[in-house]
Structures are given as structure tokens and as C-alpha cells.
């Protein structure tokens, strides 16, 4: 049972790190970026591609993956999402078109990875990979990769929460989510902020990609597809825009999945996870822990 708790914590960590990135772009800029899964995968692919050719330390691989994913997301913002926002007449139209655009962007990344890998699994080359060790704590065994995921999964939302709630940058971010026009009048630069936001969102996808690739040994070009659906479920459970909600949503989802896996032969995991999602959507469509927004009356 203790080992299963550790497994669940690792799953929570994976969902938190991945979902926070998607939540950032969705909650702040109304961009439901379904290329987030492709970006996650491409970070792992970048690590694979470079380490096939040259041996570099794992830290460099991680930074490479994070930077690759961040830059890609900025490119999507400049070439796809921003032009769509400018040309759309309503917010709803913009959101739909950005969603479609993100699917296309993600498909391009998947196609590139497929072509280069012949659709075979790919991982960081041995010489550059993190030297994963097993640590035994009584009845529990945890690898260094799993420990890293859990620790980052705890520290990241704390750090982001402090940034968003206490730092000037965070206040500006919350402001543009609410009213970008007024922000501009107040001297905030929404264009620059949106770039920084997308950079951060992509970087989180990249961090998740490198960590998961290290944890499970290899990714495939389709590895992001399942995670994007789980992240979507986490955010809908949580309520869009809420960092605390993402942590709690990830905990609920990961715990439910682990309980189902422990209690049954595992075939019902996805069915029960998404049944929970449907129930929440029916009973509390704003999510269990929505971000609080105020309206001036």
C-alpha cells in the first residue's frame, strides 16, 4: 500500500507539472493550447536528437528540452494565436480558432518526430541520461527520477502561486486575463506579457517532457496525446485558471486512477476517470475550485 501511495504521488507530480502549463495559457490568455502535448513530446525528442550526436550532461539536456518547448510555444503565439486574436470579431470565435490552430501546430511536431524516429520509441542517450538510482525507504522503493518529479510537483505550484499572487508580474498577468484593454491603458504591455506567459507555459511542458522521458525510459511521437486529455480533465475538475485547483484536481484524478488500479485489474481506469469528469461538468461546470473573479457593479 505504501508503494502505491508513492506511485500515486508520482502521478500527481506528472499531472501537476504538465497541467500547470496548459492552465497558464488557458487561464490567462484564453488559449486552450492542444499543442501542449506535442510540445511536451518534442522536448523529449530534442533531448534524444541532440544526445544521439553529442554527449552532454543531463542538466544541459533538461535545459535544452525546456528551452525548445518554450521557444516553440512562443512561435505558436506569434504565428498562430496572436494573429487569430487580432482578426477575430469575438472572443468565442478567437478561442475556437486558436484551439483548431493548436491542433494543427501539435500535428506538425508529431509528424516531425515520427519522420525522424520512424515512429520508434526514443529516449535520451545513455551517456547523457540521468543516472537513475533506486532508493529504498523501508517497504517503499523510489527512483531518483520519481523523487525529482514529486519534489518539483510540490515546489512548482508553490512558486507559481507566489509569483502570481505576490509579484508585480503576477498581478499584471491576472489583470490581462481580466481586461487586456484597460491594462494597456494602465501601462501594462499585454503583447510582451502574453509572450512571457506562453514561454512559461511551453517551458512547463518541456520540463514535464524531460522528466517523464527520464522516468519511463522513452517517449513515442504520440506520448503527449494521453497526457493532454488527462490535463484537460484536471483543469476542468479544478476550474480554469486556479493553481491550487490544478494541484487538487491532479490529486483527485491520480488518486482515483490509483485506487481503481489497485482494486481491479486496471481495465477500468480511463472509464472511471472520465466518468468523474462528466459528473463534475454536469453538477459543477465551473469546476470544483474555480478561480475567484470579481465584477465591478
Amino acid at each position, binding site marked *: 500500500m505504501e508503494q502505491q501511495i508513492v506511485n500515486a504521488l508520482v502521478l500527481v507530480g506528472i499531472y501537476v507539472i504538465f497541467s500547470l502549463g496548459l492552465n497558464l495559457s488557458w487561464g490567462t490568455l484564453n488559449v486552450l493550447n492542444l499543442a501542449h502535448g506535442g510540445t511536451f513530446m518534442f522536448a523529449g525528442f530534442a533531448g534524444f536528437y541532440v544526445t544521439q550526436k553529442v554527449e552532454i550532461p543531463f542538466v544541459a539536456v533538461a535545459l535544452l528540452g525546456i528551452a525548445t518547448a518554450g521557444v516553440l510555444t512562443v512561435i505558436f503565439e506569434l504565428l498562430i494565436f496572436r494573429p487569430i486574436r487580432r482578426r477575430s470579431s469575438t472572443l468565442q470565435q478567437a478561442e475556437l480558432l486558436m484551439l483548431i490552430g493548436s491542433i494543427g501546430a501539435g500535428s506538425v511536431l508529431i509528424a516531425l518526430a515520427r519522420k525522424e524516429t520512424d515512429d*520508434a520509441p526514443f529516449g535520451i542517450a545513455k551517456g547523457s541520461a540521468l543516472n537513475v538510482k533506486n532508493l529504498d525507504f523501508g517497504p517503499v522503493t523510489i527512483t531518483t527520477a520519481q523523487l525529482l518529479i514529486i519534489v518539483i510537483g510540490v515546489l512548482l505550484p508553490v512558486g507559481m502561486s507566489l509569483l502570481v499572487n505576490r509579484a508585480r508580474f503576477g498581478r499584471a498577468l491576472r489583470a490581462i486575463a481580466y481586461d487586456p484593454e484597460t491594462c494597456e491603458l494602465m501601462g501594462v504591455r499585454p503583447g510582451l506579457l502574453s509572450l512571457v506567459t506562453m514561454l512559461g507555459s511551453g517551458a512547463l511542458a518541456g520540463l514535464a517532457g524531460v522528466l517523464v522521458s527520464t522516468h519511463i525510459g522513452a517517449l513515442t511521437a504520440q506520448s503527449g496525446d494521453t497526457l493532454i486529455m488527462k490535463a484537460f480533465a484536471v483543469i476542468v475538475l479544478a476550474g480554469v485558471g486556479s493553481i491550487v485547483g490544478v494541484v487538487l484536481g491532479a490529486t483527485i484524478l491520480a488518486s482515483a486512477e490509483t485506487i481503481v488500479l489497485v482494486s481491479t485489474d486496471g481495465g477500468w481506469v480511463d472509464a472511471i476517470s472520465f466518468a468523474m469528469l462528466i459528473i463534475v461538468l454536469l453538477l459543477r461546470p465551473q469546476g470544483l475550485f474555480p478561480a475567484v473573479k470579481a465584477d465591478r457593479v
Partner: protein
Amino acid sequence: MIAIAQRMARVGAVGALASALVLSACGSESSDEAGDGGGLPDTVTLKASVSLSGLAGPGGQPTQKGMEVAIEEINDSKFLGSTTLKLDITDSKTDPKVGASAMAQHAASDTPVAIGSSAGAVALAEATVAQRQGLPLIFPQAGSKGVLETGDHIYRTTPLQTSYFHKTLEYLQTEGVKRAAVIYDSDNPTIQALNDLFQSGASKYGYEVVSTQATTSNTVDVSSQVTKMLNAKPDAIFVDVLQAHNVQVIKQLRQAGYDGLIVAQQGAAGGTLKPIAEDAEGVVFTNDFNPGSDNEGTKHFTELYQKKFDELPGNFAAEGYDTIWFAARAIKDADSVDRDKVLASMATVGEAGFVGALGELKIVDRQAVITTPVLVRLDNTAAEIPVE
């Protein structure tokens, strides 16, 4: 009167000549001149729907390579006389909808016989379309129940894994395995069938199934399933998952501290486990092909493949090769690109059997049968070494 009769005779002669020309044009198999094979046109194009991407992509890519080797050999050796055989592949993306759509297009083309995808779910969709359209269809792999049962136009040139999986279970018995666990992808019919055999073989081969864990082929983290299996303290674990998924499952088994015996199935073949070669060392499974085998057909194919691609072939390439050769043999036997004639010849050629990359291959009731499956063990480079 005589002038009118003469005019009518001239018109009649011209008309008869014109009719003869029209009829001869309609009677020929294509607009090209017939080749030396008698009823064959100058070019015959085989249409194929192969999963080059998606979860079955790692198998589809080498299948294509094997097919290309066969096409080249057939043309170079003038097996079909002066007729050139061409191959036109559509990527079915391991997606039944894409496969079915591709097969509909192939059925509307002039291909005498088509090649289908290897993944069971895609194959089922393609077989339904082909049977309905009267298109003979040959599958490499696609071992799911229901594929051949779709109808008499459907053939499979790969022996079913279930027909030789017993060698793996015999190995468990030889190794003295008493407690065995299994993790399997519940969303794949072929894999389910192998799991069923594993479960039902317990008493015959002397082991107890102490843990059975289901997952799905797109599940990234299987830590919980791994923990449950290891808690049951098995002597051996059967990893019964779809190709690329083997990497993640075996990696997580080793990371969890399991260093016991792992047996797998053909999904682990073809270099799939190269990214985790050291962790995969010692994994055992039965395959229908091994380049180190000493049967003549295997040696011949291996030589041609190495010459073209500068690497050793795996089972998927061998199966692709045999599939094309079976199609070519049927077309030659029929001496026609008429689908009904080719279909009849497929039965004849299959029954007679031939020597292919998989060794001696016969097709009984539209299903390939071989007598030489190979039990292999992976070394630390993920190369498949026959187990003595």
C-alpha cells in the same frame, strides 16, 4: 442496285473491321499491351495500406522495406516476364477509419490484389471494405479474431502468434517457473488472445498466474500495475503489450527493482527495445523469423535485405517480403489481373506452399502456417539471439 449493294458491302466491311477493333480493345486487360506473361499488362500496381505511423508504425516501416526488397527481386528476376510490378503504399496511421478509407480507394482502382495493415483493429475495418468490394486482400500480421472470418477474399501470410506461442510457455516450464504474472494491453485483440493462452496454459506448463494486470497501449505510467505484480513475487513476468509500449513497461519493471525473467511476444521484436537495450537484456520471446536461422529462404532474404539497407532484417520485413511474393505468385499463376482469377490462384499457390523469408510457408484455410518459429533472447544491444 449493284452500286447500292457494293456500297453496302463496303460499309459492312468497314463496320466489321471497326467492331473487331473495338472488341479487341475491350477484351484486353488494360490499355497497355499484354506482356510476355500472356494476360498480364506491362505494369501491375499492387495497392497497399500499411500503418507507417501510429502505434503500429514501428512494425509498418520495416514491413514496407521488406516489400520493397520483394518488388525489386521480382522485377530484376523477371518473375512476371516483361511485366513490371509496382507498389503503391498508403499510410493507414494505425487508424481504422483511415485504413477503411484507403481500402475503399484501392478497391476502386485496378489493383488485382491489395495488401492490408498489420494492426488488428485497422485490419478488421479494411477486411470489411475489401470483402464487400470483391477485392482480394492479403494481411501480414493482423492476427485478431474476425479478420479472416470477414470472408473468402481475405488471406493472412503471417502465422498467428497464437500458433507458436506455446514455445514461450514451454520455455517457462523448462526454466522451472512456478509463479508467473502478466501485464497486457486490454485495447488490442491479438494481445488479449495471447493473454488468454497464457492464462489457460498455466496448468499444462506448470505455473500459477499470481497477478494479471490490464493497461492500455497509450498509458505512459504503469507504476501501479508494476507494484501489484511485484507484490505477488512472480518468478517470471509476461509483458504482453503493443510494440512501443514494451519500452515503457520493461523500463519501469527494471526500475522497480525486478531483475527476474521477462517473456514477451512479437511486439518486442524488430529492435523496438533498442532505447532500453541494457534493461531489455535477457527478454525472451518466440518469433516467426530470425536472420540467423539457417533455412534457405531466410538466408536468401537476409542477404538481399542487407545489401539494400545495410542492416539485418526483422520479422516485420520478412513478413512484408513474403506477402508480396505470395501476391506475385498468385498473379503469375492466374496469368491475369482479373480479381476472381487471382483469388482462385491464391488458394492454389497457398495450398502448394512456397519457400519464403519465414521458411516453408503454406496457406491453409487462408491462414499461413510455418513449421520453424524461433525462440529468441535479447542481448544487451536488443539483438535477437536464438535460444539453443
